[in-house]
């Protein structure tokens, strides 16, 4: 389209128009209106700080106009920018209206100039960054990195308190005896013997051996059975030792015992 007609306008606008047309074919190549403005500003061939924003606005508007003629659909961004630039242009051209609020045309223009300069600066910075020596292109990392073995090391901790609590727990929990026979309701013969040896001295006459059952063992049937058996066994043992006499009047009658009087021997 660059071989398109060139109606003679003002001389300085011809170049701009040509540029604009060249740009239009490539409108997709722009990264938004600010990018387009930056590209347009290059046609002014001046330092960005000295750029004429008014002129730039006119260039941009011409660009948009041209795009419309060519029925190129511009994204909304570009049109919003065009509207804003038209507004800016009028502000810049008309003498300031003191009754009007908001920033002056010059302030707005200055900010736009700042934005353009900043964008350009970032582009330059990007270029310099990408021109740096790069890993994998100019300098290289180790070709065969050695695998670092990950060793999971577990350290166990315990405090003295843990230790003592553990010990105390062990030494005081009688009920924690899973596979040992439950001795809580077992009254051993040794225990019975010991108990009876202490008691027979006080028993004068025949006494039912059941009265020798330890206190607390009479009610629970399991305990009672165990204590009865061990007391009976202990009685036999004492009889064997010659310390007591045992008698039973008939089958299933109470078994009685008394201390063997040494005199009666």
């Amino acid at each position, binding site marked *: 389209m660059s071989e398109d007609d060139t109606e003679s306008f003002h001389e300085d606008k011809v170049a701009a128009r040509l540029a604009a047309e060249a740009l239009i074919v490539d409108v997709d190549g722009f990264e938004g209106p*600010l990018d387009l403005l930056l590209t347009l500003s290059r046609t002014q061939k001046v330092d960005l700080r000295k750029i004429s924003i008014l002129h730039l606005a006119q260039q941009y508007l011409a660009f948009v106009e041209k795009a419309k003629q060519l029925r190129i659909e511009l*994204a909304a*961004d570009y049109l919003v920018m065009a509207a804003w630039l038209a507004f800016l242009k009028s502000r810049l051209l008309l003498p300031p209206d003191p009754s009007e609020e908001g*920033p002056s045309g010059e302030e*707005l223009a200055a900010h736009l100039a700042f934005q353009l300069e900043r964008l350009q600066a*970032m582009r330059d910075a*990007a270029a310099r960054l990408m021109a740096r020596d*790069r*890993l994998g292109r100019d300098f290289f990392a180790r070709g065969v990195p050695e695998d670092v073995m990950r060793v999971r090391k577990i350290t166990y901790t315990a405090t003295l308190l843990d230790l003592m609590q553990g010990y105390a727990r062990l030494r005081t929990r009688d009920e924690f005896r899973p596979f040992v026979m439950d001795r809580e309701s077992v009254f051993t013969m040794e225990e019975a013997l010991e108990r009876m040896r202490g008691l027979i001295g006080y028993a004068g006459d025949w006494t039912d051996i059941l009265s020798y059952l330890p206190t607390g063992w009479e009610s629970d049937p399991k305990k009672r059975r165990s204590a009865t058996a061990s007391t009976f066994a202990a009685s036999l043992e004492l009889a064997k030792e010659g310390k007591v006499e045992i008698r039973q009047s008939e089958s299933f009658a109470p078994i009685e015992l008394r201390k063997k009087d040494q005199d009666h021997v």
Partner: protein
Amino acid sequence: MSEDIEKKEGFGAEAGDAADSGAEESLFEAPPMAEQERMCEAILFASAEPVTVKELNSRMPHGCDAAEALVHLRKRYEGRGVRVVKVGDAWAMRTAPDLGFLMQKEMIETRKLSRAAIETLAIIAYHQPITRAEIEEIRGVSVSRGTVDQLLEMEWIRFGRRKMTPGRPVTFVVTQVFLDQFGLENTRDLPGLKELRAAGLLESRPPPGTMPTLGDGDEGEEESSEGQSELFED
């Protein structure tokens, strides 16, 4: 599991916390500095990725001072074909850039970055931490999701702290991978940073009054070419 347990359990556990407890220093004497230098050398050599001083210290025997050993090591490799370089708070060994021409075989086919991605990356590097809206304000166009995703995926950028402004927007910062990629010790070494700062080009300047907010379409591609020309009446 049980074979992982080291003999000096208590010692190992303490080493981390009480790195410089005098009691232990006397128990275990640190290896001589020349030996520590060798150790740093071996570790950095073996690793493709930069290794932090902290990690060096944790891998070296108790009482070692990796930071000092690195100073010696760096000096030793000055002018060699391989260099000891600092990358952020980590260290690495890299071939000297002037010998890149020998390495065609090792050359990594780098993913071609789009212009948008390159610009976005530079803006993040020079302005970090920076929000997406601020990037868009600078570029004058909305940042496509794909661009940021690509940079995140390459691990050249990462999320930074949220900004204490309304909406608490997330920020982006560059990573150690980025520094390594471009041979930078830290972001202060970015080319031209001082000049840009001096020129006031790195400060955020709010637009006066009624500037159009450029690129505030915050999701999707910039070219949402819905014919909205009817909105425009000039």
